[in-house]
């Protein structure tokens, strides 16, 4: 067992974990964050994406023991229980989700991309948006609504910054 301290969505906890224990399982079981979804457990689908010290990472390919002292954000922290973040709202208005299982992973992958585009003050083209989500699999939407949601979130961000 290894003692680690994680700060997750603003809450710090010190716990004992087996070295092999996946970050995804620790977030789901010890922090009770049901928004962390496991789609493949081999790093190919992106469902389990969380932010580790600000960067999207696959929590199914990360051992919790590697994350001692890290700051972690999951979808629960993004827009609260009403999903009020601009990107979440854009997913809703553009029908960027159906069953919702891959959705938290997409949100966590695409949030930094949207923020970066707003900082750069530019609207990415569709190919660029599609490339940004190429590590995430959605089986329901055909990606169309997700691309539209990203466009809308960037455009909302650009308007707010203008």
């Amino acid at each position, binding site marked *: 067992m290894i003692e680690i301290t994680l700060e997750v969505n603003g809450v710090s906890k010190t716990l004992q974990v*087996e070295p*092999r*224990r996946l970050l995804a399982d620790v977030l*789901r079981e010890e922090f009770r*964050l*049901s*928004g*962390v*979804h*496991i*789609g*493949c*457990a*081999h790093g*190919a*689908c992106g*469902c389990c994406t969380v932010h580790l010290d600000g960067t999207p990472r696959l929590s199914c390919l990360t051992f919790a023991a590697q994350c001692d002292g890290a700051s972690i954000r*999951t*979808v*629960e922290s*993004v*827009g*609260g*229980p*009403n*999903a009020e973040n601009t990107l*979440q709202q854009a*997913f*809703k*208005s553009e*029908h960027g*989700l*159906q*069953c*919702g*299982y*891959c*959705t*938290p992973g997409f*949100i966590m992958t695409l949030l930094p991309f949207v923020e970066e585009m707003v900082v750069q003050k530019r609207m990415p083209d*569709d*190919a660029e*948006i*599609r*490339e940004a*989500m*190429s590590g*995430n*699999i*959605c*089986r*329901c*939407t*055909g*990606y*169309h*609504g*997700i*691309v539209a949601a990203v466009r809308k979130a960037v455009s909302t961000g650009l308007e707010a910054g203008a």
Partner: protein
Amino acid sequence: MKAEQPRHIGARIQRFEDIRLLSGSARYIDDIRLPDMLHLNFVRAETAHANIVEVDTSGLADLDYPTWVFTGKDTAGLSMKAHQDYPEMQYSEQPLLAEGKVRFVGEPVAVVLAEDAYKAEDAAELVFVDYDPLPVVGTMAQARDPESTPLFEGWNGNVIVQRQMKGGNLEAAKAQAAHVIRRTYRTQRQAGVPMECRGVVASFDTASRVLTVWSSTQMPHLVRTYISEELGLPESRIRVVAPDVGGGFGVKGQVFADEVLVAWLAMQTGRPVKWIEDRREHLIASIHARDHEHTLEAYVSADGRLLGLKADITVDNGAYSTFPFTSAGEPGMVGKVLPGPYDFQAYEATFRAVATNKCAIGTYRGVARPSAVFSQERLVDDIAAELGLDPIEFRLKNVVRQFPYRNVLGFTYDPGSYAEALEKIRELLADDIAEAAASRNSKTRRIGVGIACFIEQTAHGTPDFTRRRVPIETGYIAARVDMSPDAGVTIDLGLQNHGQGLETTMAQVAADALGIEPKDVFVRHGDTMTTPYSVGTWGSRGGPLGGGAVHVAATKIADKLRAIAGHLLQAKPDQIVLAEGKASVRDNPGSFIEIRRLARIAQRNVDQLPEGMTPGLEAHASVDGPADGSYANAVHAAVVEIDVETGKTKLRRFVVVEDCGTILNPLVVDGQVRGGVVQGIGSAMFEHFVYDSECQPLTTSFADYLMPLAPEIPDIEVHHIETPTPLTPLGAKGLGEGGAIGPAAAIANAVANALEIGVTNTPLNTDAVWKLARHIRGQA
């Protein structure tokens, strides 16, 4: 009949279910946690066909934590029985845990339970199974060889079932034909692969003697019935709950052996038991789909009229028959639907399912029709090419135009827009067709345009299943609608929502019938304790049958509200209009009473009710499918760009013209179509379950089983034609599956068009297209 003035049906309303899904507060099967829960891990067959010599569990004794282990000896006699009631069918049963023999890699042989999921997985590795291998049956040809080793005792060969359907005079059609075109088409093994794997949690309460089973399923009531019959418990004491379900696509539309097993284990151990499938298990041992070979022979007149069609169909079913559609479902569906949208009156189909040492074939979005339409529409293009006709012209010449139409097998098609959809697609693709023709001069880069014109029988009802004699037996969907004293409405729906937007569309339907707002309607589903018995969500039935049931039930409540309002406003009930929260007298809008007030009177101030009226605002309704279903139609078009040197194929454009009758919510309809199309693109170009000659699966992770990712996919353009059907209460036809049916055919036709060569197989991945382009590169 729709509401007098639909306000919400047809509106692009954003979905109510989105917030919990976006915020991370949805509850999927893996989020079910119970006190004292045991975690289950399967020991699965590593060889495809073998006698089990011994299952040695003695290694578990050395562990320093408690485990529970069960093998086929413990579950002896418990099995999945999925028989079609025809004498031609050779019966098979899948034991809950293998008894004496394994028949595919991944088949459950034993289970190990422990108090921690990691520990259960560790412990399962200590179970040693000794196998005595048997010869495998790995291909359709091997399975059809009468000398092959039968998979089941008492079987004669490995053809599970072979039957025929026919209509009209095929010999006469053949004699009359100027052209006979014969081709063989092959569609590969693939599956729905939802992003959430399957999973089951079960708990038995000894005090109430109630068994509760949570399962990631599309059909909770059927799971309840099967468990009841197999374990001998009354259905009244079994509650099956489908929590949020992370995609189904038909994969979760069957009852699985593990659902019965986990329930049984909860009773055996006296502890709640949880099993969460991992991705490897899902890819090798849940459900596969398609895997068809069709040999078609078309008889065509000199002037390009299709006179008749002869078909020979084989489906590689894998080892077991799945409940409730059976291994007869897939080939039978092809035989039934091959006539498609075309007007001809001579037909004969011979179809069979064969058993091999592979994962069982079950349902996946489109069920047999993506393969059937692939063959049908490839054949139509091959005929047009042989006759030197434009493929769209050939189709326009042969599609059904008069409705209702009785097809060669006696099925009646309700009104559709087959020719109109073809005309529309021709107009939309005109520039691409010209560009494709111009690219014929190039030896390096070719453009191709392909279309698929098809119909889809949706909303299958009881008569359809009675004909098929399969255990599904019926197809109705029920709803119970209840208006509370505060005028809020609850719908308890027999459908199960796993992405279709039913919590929104069903609220729209009820709101129109009752004159209230959709936001005031709460849709509950997926729990057998609260919802009326129904077959679940599959087979494109949600809109036409679920929507129909909600409409009929809500209308019963509306009639009662009108009666109360008429009594209070001194008007006849049929003069009362329910809209915008008010019950108003027609042509006298000043005379009204709020629906909220009526709801209270009906349940609290009951002294104000008309004399003799019973209190309460509750209604149940069920709607079954029409005798021959309702036929949605569509034309799909694909534009591909092929690099002749490498085979790299870019899908430049994909266009859909579809007709699903009345549209309940265009946001949801477009989403269903686009999602289906992209799954169909996966079928056409990427996805393939590969087995080696010993029936070892080679595609066991997402690194091998390739599904479409965003960069490969163009925007899917969707156009609608709305031909409401007279056969369902709202005029809606089913549309959940249609998107997935056309792409394999459209893309294959586009590749054939680009390369000027017949295409017979899917998937059309880079390697396959590179081989097809050989003649353009000038290679032999």
